Every structure is written in C-alpha cells, then in structure tokens.
C-alpha cells in the first residue's frame, strides 16, 4: 500500500474546515439547551481569523518554548488526524502509524501545551498544566485498554485495518465488548477534550479552569493555533469513536458519489455524538478535581470488562 497525496490533502482540508464547525455546533446547541441564544455556529471561524490578524503579546519571562508550543499542538493534532479513517476505510497515513502513534502524537501536543502553560511564570498556567497532565495520565490506561479491546478483536493497532475488520464483520456494535469499550472511550473523550464534568471550556474562573488556564497568556496567532489544534484534536477523537464503532458507512470505493455519501453520513454521526456531548455537559455539574479519578477509573473498569468479555464470548 502507498500514500495518496490527494487523499492526504483532502483529509487535511477536511480536518481544518470541520474542526471549528464541531466546536461551534456544540457551543450553540448547549446554549439552546440552556435557553440562551448562544453564539452562531460559525463563530469559531471568525475567532480564528481575528486572532490570526492580531498582534502577539509574549510574557517577559517566557522562553522560546512558549512560542513553539502552539505550532507543535496544531501540527501533532493535524498529523494525528491523518491516521484516522474519516471518509474511507483507508486512512491516508495509516501506514505511518495506528492507534499508538495517534495517542503518542496527541500526548506530544499535550506535553508542549503544558510546557507553554508553565513558561510565563504565572500561577494559573502551572495549575493548569499540573491538572492537565494529571487527568490525562489517569485517562491514559482507560484509553489504551479500550483501544486494546478493539485492536485485539481486529488483531492490529492500525486503525484502517480495525475499521476494515469491523466493516466486514457485520454490525459489530452489538458485541458487548465493543459497547463497553465505546462507553469507556466516550468518557475518555470528555476528559481529553476538556468537557464538563471534567473541565469546563466556558469558564475563566481561576480555580476551576484547566485547559483555559494554560492558554491564559496566549494571544494573537499563537492563541489561534492553540484553539484550532484543540478543536482538531476533539474532531479526531470524535471521529475515532464514530468511525470505529459504526464503521458500516465508510466509502467502499473511490467514486465521488461514494465520497459524498460517506461525508454526509460522517457529519451526521458527528452531530449525533456532539448532541450526546451537549446533553452530558448540560445535565451534569463539573466534578471536583479529586472526584475525577473516580469517573476515569470507572472508564478503566468498563474497558477492562470489555476486554474480559472479548475473552469470555470467544
């Protein structure tokens, strides 16, 4: 198998374009659900353009790490996105790495995000990085175990092959292992994308914010790439969920029609998932930091059960 430049370009464009849309949708629907008017769906695009144009203010204490962090976050999220099958079973970069590489890349992005938070010497940034690293650390085992559950049934960590395997196996979703893995991954998704009940993307209250705290000192295009990278990461994780657990609808052949169809269904699936996220965010309150581990360990247990059930039902 070899690389299709066209596919790469296409998927890159898709990620760049779709990511702000998803966050916009979620913000908007959440507002609606809470009887507010809320920002328009395309608000994130406007924000990005605005940020890109603005001057950059850099802290006097910050070093070069501060300025490269946003680009690392952006690029890692983007290249991670190229390993996920979105429209076709065959992800453009599945040859360059599967689930493990994807997790690794996202972790690399987080690494620099946290460093960027520490660099301006403000207490908030440090607090944010500390919490971010803690939560991701305890989210990691659940994530890995869930991935393992899927990968074991497919026999590979290559997401395209996993998708393909599930594609052939008709309607795998009923498999309890997958249900539990899905649930686990959903919780991890909430944690990784900084959603209620783990984090509150809307707040700027010092003591509760996590992701925002790290971005506090960023401005201008640096902030733009930070935000954009975050939303791309969110899109990537969501598309893993939707495409690995409901793979039936990925485009089988290369015809334009098939692509179009796949794209539509993909967007629908995303909207469905976003709706779920919105509901969860609305009906739940943010957890205290030290209650978060309980939630994530619940995810871990779910994934472990899923694994156990693959073991039992084979």
């Amino acid at each position, binding site marked *: 198998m070899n690389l299709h430049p066209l596919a790469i370009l296409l998927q890159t464009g898709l990620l760049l374009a779709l990511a702000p849309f998803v966050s916009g949708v979620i913000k908007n629907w959440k507002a609606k659900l809470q009887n507010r008017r809320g920002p328009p769906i395309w608000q994130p695009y406007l924000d990005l353009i605005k940020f890109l144009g603005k001057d950059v203010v850099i802290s006097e204490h910050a070093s070069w790490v501060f300025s490269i962090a946003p680009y690392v976050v952006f690029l890692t999220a983007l*290249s991670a996105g190229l390993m996920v099958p979105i429209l076709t079973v065959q992800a453009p970069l599945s040859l360059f790495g599967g689930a493990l590489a994807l997790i690794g890349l996202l972790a690399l992005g987080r690494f620099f995000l946290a460093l960027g938070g520490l660099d301006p010497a403000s207490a908030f940034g*440090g607090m944010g990085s500390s919490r971010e690293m803690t939560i991701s650390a305890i989210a*990691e085992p659940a994530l890995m175990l869930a991935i393992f559950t899927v990968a074991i049934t497919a026999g590979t960590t290559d997401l395209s092959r996993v998708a393909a395997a599930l594609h052939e196996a008709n309607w795998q979703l009923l498999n309890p292992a997958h249900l539990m893995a899905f649930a686990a991954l959903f919780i991890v998704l909430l944690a990784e994308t900084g959603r209620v009940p783990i984090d509150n993307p809307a707040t700027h209250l010092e003591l509760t914010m996590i992701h925002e705290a790290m971005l506090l000192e960023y401005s201008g295009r640096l902030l733009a790439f930070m935000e954009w990278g975050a939303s791309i990461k969110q899109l990537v994780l969501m598309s893993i969920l939707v495409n690995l657990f409901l793979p039936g609808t990925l485009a089988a052949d290369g015809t334009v029609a098939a692509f179009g169809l796949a794209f539509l269904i993909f967007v629908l699936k995303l909207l469905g998932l976003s709706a779920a996220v919105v509901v969860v965010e609305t009906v739940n309150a943010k957890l205290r930091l*030290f209650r978060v581990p309980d939630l994530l360990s619940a995810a871990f247990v779910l994934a472990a059960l899923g694994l156990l059930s693959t073991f039992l039902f084979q």
Partner: protein
Amino acid sequence: MPPGFPLMSAIFINVGLILFLVGTVSSLVLQRRGNLAVAFAFGCSGLAALCGLTAFITFLVAGFSRPIPAYELFPSLVPNVHFSVRIDALGAFFGMIVSLLGVALSVYSFGYAKAFVGRKNVGILGAFFNTLLLATTLVFLADNAFFFLIAWEIMALSAYCLVSFEHEHDETRSAGVLYFIMSHIGTGCLILGFLLLFQASQSYGFETFHALGDRMPPAKRDAAFLLFLFGFGVKAGIVPLHTWLPAAHPVAPSNVSALMSGVIIKTGIYGLTRVSFDFLGAPPNWWGVTVLTIGTISAVLGVLYALMEHDLKRLLAYHSIENIGIILMGLGAALMFLHTHHPVLAALALSAGLYHTINHAVFKALLFLGAGAVLHATHTRNMEEMGGLAKRMPKTALFFLIGAVAISALPPLNGFVSEWLTYQSLLQGFGTTPSLIRLMFPLSGAMLALTGALAAACFVKAFGITFLAQARSQHARDAHEAPFSMLLGQGILTAVCLLLGLFPVQFLTLLDPVTKQLTGEVLSSKLTAGSAWVLSGTAPQGGTVSTLGITLIALCLSSIPVALWWLFARRSRKRIDATWACGQPILQPQMEYTATGFSKPIRMIFKALFRPHREVQREYDYSPYFTTTIRFSAHVEEVFETRIYRPFRRWVWWISRRMRALQAGSIQAYLIYIFLTLLLLLFFAL
C-alpha cells in the same frame, strides 16, 4: 562474512582494554597535576571506548549469531581461573552500549572534571572511571563464571569508590555503603546461582552452561533462577530491591551517575537475559509471569516515586527504576512466548526489551549530563531553587528537552519506538495462550500506558520547573552555559537519540544476531512493512509505524501555519510584556507553581501509596488572617524503606547489641564457657 573478521574485533577490543588500563595508571600517576590527569584519563577512556564501539558494531554488522571461540586475555597463573573472553551477539550488543556511553561521557568529563581540579583528587576520579568502564566491558565479555564474578566485583568496588568520591557529605557515605552492601548481597546470590550450575556441570565455562537447565533437576533449576533474579535484580534496581538506587545515583559525580544509570544497572539486565535465555533452558511459565509482573510493578512505582521528587538527580534515578521495569516487561513477555513456543513473538518482545535498554542508556545518560550541567551552573540539585535556565543555558535546555521527550515515549523519538514494540508484543501475546494468564498482557499494556503518561507529567515538571519561567534563587539567576566539551558530550547523545528514533528498522538489523542467538529467529526482515522506513509488528497484519514519515509529514504540514501567517499576520507585531499578576505590581518568583505543587494532584490521588504528610508553619503580626511568612513542606513515605528495610536494620542492630553481653569482661564467665564446651564435647564423644 569475510573471514578473520572476529579477529579484527578481538584486536580492537584488546587495544581498548589496554587503553583503559593505561588511563587508570596514568591518571593515578599524574594525580598531583590535576589538568594533566584529566586529559590523560578521559582521553584514554574515550579512545578505548571508541575502539570498543568499532569492534562491537563491526561484529554485530557482520551478524555473527554464534560466539567466536573464546581466547585468553592473559594466561592465568591461578588454578581454575581462566581470564578468557568470548564475543557473542548478546555481549557485543551490551558492549556496544557501554562503549557508546563511554565515548560521550569521556568527552563530557573533560569539562566536567575540570571543576574538581584543585578541590578534589581528580586522579582518583579518572582512575576509577576507567576501571569501571574496563570492568563493565569485561562483565559483558567474560567466558566463565569465575572471571565474570571477578569483573562483577571489581565493577561494584570501583562504582562504590566513585559514588563516595565526594565523601565529605554524610549522605554520600551512607549511600555508598548501602549500595555496596546490597550489591554484595546480590553478588552472594549470583555466586550461589553459578555454583548450582557448577554443581550440575562440574565446570565454570559459559560454553558448558549453555542450555544446562534442561539437564538440571527442576527444583535446583528454579532455585538458580530465583537466585539469579534476586542477584541481578538488585543490580538492576527492581522494586522492591531498588532502595539503594535513588540513594546512590544522585550523590555520585554526574558523569558517574550517567554511567551507573545508563550502563551499570543494565549489567543486571544482561545477566538476567544471559541466564534465562542462554543457560537455564526452556523456561516454565511462571518465570515469564514473575518477570512481567515485577517489570510492571517497578515501572509504575518507579515513575510514581519519581513524580514526588524535587531533587533533579533523584528524580532521574527513580526514572531508571521505571525504565528497568519497562525493559523487564519485554523480557518477561519473551520468556512467556518461549514457554508457549512462539519464537517470533519471543524475538519481538526480546528486541523490544533490548531496544529499550539501549534507548534508556542513551537518554538517561543525556538527562544526567544535563542535570550535571545544571548542577555545575547552579550548585544545587533542588528544583525549587531553579527556573528560568532555558534563557541562561539554551543549548543545555534544548538537549534536556529532547531527552525528556524521548524518555516520555513521545514520537518521533527512540523511547516511543521501543515502547511501541513492547505494545505490539503485548497485544499479540493475547492470542498465544487460551489460559486466563493472557489477560496479563493487555493489563500490563494499560499499566505501561499509565507509566508513559505519568512519565510525561513528570518531565513536564522536571523541564518546566527547572528551565522555564523565572529563576527562583540567586544561584539560578547567575547560572551560565556549560563549557563546550560538556555540550559536545550531550550533543552526541542527542544525535544518537534522534538516530535511534528515526531509523529503527536500520538499527533493528543490529539486533538480528542477538535474537538469532537467543530465540533462533531473525527479525528485522519481518519488521519492515514494504518500504525500509516503516516499522511493523510481526503479526500478519500487525500495526505499522514510521517515525521518519510522521516527522516529514509534520514538516510538510508546517507549511500551513506559514501560509496562514503570510495571509493574515504579516503585519502583526510581537510585543514583550509582563505576565498578568492578579493586579500585583510585579510577579514574584514565589508566585510560581513549585515542583511540589505541580505533583500535588498525583500525590492526592495516590495517597494510599504515598501516605503524604505536610507541615505548615505560618507567622503573623496581629491577626492570623494576615500571614507574614508561611513555610510549607510536604513529605511522602517510601513504603519499602519504612516497612521492610528500616525494621530489618533495627532488628539486626538489636540482636548484635544483645550479643555483646556475651563478652561482658568477667573472666569467670569466660572460664564457664570453656568448661561447658568441654563437658558438652565429653558427652558428645562418649
């Protein structure tokens, strides 16, 4: 392969060994003339290591999977002792590691040891540095148990002398003693293990030990395995035998710490591999299970304790425990695969472990050298007094950052590759056995994930608190960049990190002889998917990864930000301004996040393990609501130290004190002893 090739490497090795000796002697002779001693000692060690490197690499490249015949270094004049060495793939691989580090560390030491000239006797430092390298190389080359043990003990002895180099501090002395005692106990176990083999084969030769286990009674075989596991485990610093490691590694001079964390603890891995794959024959299942479990526990606990440290070098030492654990996961899985007769998977897991061995050697040495440079610049190991060094020593900061990324197993660097291989082998291990045991694989995989994430957290803390933000103390404020040779030493290791990360397939060919020797499988061909730049899990459709590809793609994608900048932000300016300080006039360093604070969430989450306790002293003038000064200190309890080692030590002292009463000084009592002995023997005789 060209004939006489082994001869070549043999010659190179001999030259190297002789050079080490020359280095030892010359630096002892020149100890009065500090700088000259430094030049000679580290010059010789560097050249010697270079010779060794060429020899071992040529050997591995030529791919001798079968050992070349042993030869005597120098004729022994003592019966039963033969100073004979042989080069085989495993030994050559580890020899390559020690030589590689030897080169980089010697370069680094030129600048580093200068700092001691006049203050301490650098001649001693150089001499024992050479001896240590020499002994370690011989450990990997020794061909019989007697010689192996001699080299092993000399290694321990010189390491002890290096650890207690700055013996003026009490902490250093006690650490050295603890290290030497535990290592000696370990050596005792090794002696017993080897003697069990000797009992079975009536010989000391490693040749005759090969696959000896199959001819031994199972009980003795298992006993030997356990003895070796203990003996080599002490050296490798597995939990719960690790307590000496975070004590001894930090107090040594940094180039020595790098050597110890990089290579010396790897001798334990070497021994374990040698014994369990070469000597003891087909392993029963519980060996693999034990090693895998120990590995997992060591990995998780190691990184957890590392997170609690704010002493930079102790933090790194704890990470050595973690990485030893990861290596052992690979070895344990390999043993289990051997038991279930999956040689290819065994080869995969083994190469994962060995790959991580060399990776850890490189980036841990790199990090210790960085820490050494920081120590050299700030004269403190306490991270709470550092900060802002990225501006004052940018190159060191860059090297340290790369090391940190590598040890956190982040792509595209070498740590990621070896852990990726470990994941692959664990993943495929699930299918190898129908029994419930197979759940161990994914679970330890999850623990490995936890370890990786915690390591990332820990190094965000290590790098962030040490190098970023503003300086927390005067030391840190007037820090300066390290001299050239120290930077060069770090640079070499950084380059190796990148190479090992970006060209794994090419490197794995060097491992072929080893896997061929130990598992009978050649791997590198199975590990390349299509192009030579893509690494693949061995299974028919295992995952693939290409660090090089990822890097290139990322570079291509970075055109997007550039383009966007050109489109929107060409005219935007960059302003430097103060960080928002909540309305305070200026941002005080005290307002920064501290290392202790950074790791507090983890400390709270795992409080069952850490049993943290804190002391807060606050002073105020007129009302407790307006505190003038506040002093906070948090401690965690090291369970093994407080629950196992300290009580045992107390018990020993108590017994000994009690026994002194026997020698109370009264001659009557002494006469009674003799009298009773006489009566006893009279009864015994009649």
